[in-house]
């Protein structure tokens, strides 16, 4: 069976590196994008199983990436977990309304993020409903 692929979208290279070490240690394949344009390109060419998405990005922002993702039928079912340094007010509700499966502010506990990833993947594969 192919390994689960996660696209990490963040403009901070240190954050990307830290997440990749953690995710790879838990068996995931990791891809990167550092801005909204390269994130959209990676979604189309690689079709990852899940996206960890920062909101503050160059060349657009995380909301733009989510909008493009949900407009594309082939990509719309990819779960997105928002992991951002932006303030809570206004962003959490907006991100969830935009279709994010989960919203976390940095820094997030590794266990919490890994649990959310597993749950979002289970939901997208039809093995679990969101309310379970």
């Amino acid at each position, binding site marked *: 069976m192919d390994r689960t692929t996660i696209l990490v979208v963040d403009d*901070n290279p*240190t954050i990307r590196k830290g997440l990749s*070490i953690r995710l790879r*240690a838990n068996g995931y394949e990791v891809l990167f994008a550092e801005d909204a344009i390269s994130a959209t390109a990676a979604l189309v060419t690689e079709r990852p199983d899940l996206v960890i998405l920062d909101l*503050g990005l160059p060349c657009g922002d995380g909301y733009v990436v989510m909008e493009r993702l949900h407009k594309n039928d082939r990509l719309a079912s990819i779960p997105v977990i928002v992991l951002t*340094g932006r303030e809570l007010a206004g962003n959490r509700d907006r991100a969830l309304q935009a279709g994010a499966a989960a919203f976390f502010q*940095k*820094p997030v506990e*590794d266990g919490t993020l890994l649990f959310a990833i597993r749950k979002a993947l289970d939901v997208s594969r039809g093995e679990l409903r969101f309310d379970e």
Partner: protein
Amino acid sequence: MILDTAMNTVRVLLIDAGEAAPIRRSVNTGQAEQFRATRKATLSEGLEALQTPHFDVVLLNLSLPDASAAESVAKVLKMARGLPVIALVNEGETAKIAEALRLGAQDYVLKGCHCDSLIRTVQYAIERKRLVTEREHALRPVTKNEAQLIAHLSHESRNALACIRQFGKILVDGLAGELSGEQREYLGIMLENASKLRSVLDSALDGTPGPLEEYTNKNERLSKLET
């Protein structure tokens, strides 16, 4: 001394028709080095004087020849733009006092009151007004610039903190090789303090209950105990 104005002088605008002359003398002679009064005899002259930013407090006679008590207070408050207004009344004018305070006057003094009492009233009115203004400033909605600053602070500080925690946990979990007991202990201290810093950020930037709120509540409790 409560006040600390630029020149160490409290600039008083005295709006009264003349019968309150003792008040003026009190203000001008009581503590001459700290108070300076300018008298205007009518409401219209007083309002004109208030168009200049030359005063710290207004003493307003409620028995002016060209306006009722309520009209005087309302117009002076509007023109005074944040200056404390103290009503000057005769003994027994309780209805006028109540109306003036209801409209927003800071306090009142009786005509012919003792000099020390007048000066204290002026000082306290200015101090109270300053505290109210500070409180209103603290409670006002954040401006666009402040919102941008908060967003910037949140983004930068959370990213930096996330890096510290991510790599600290990577080391603690042995993902970059085994650690000695001492190294593990020191990393534990770093991560514990990173968690504390996160609580401070949550509290300061997002209003989540945390150390800052505890600090504020504690100080409010102490203030109440002191009073």
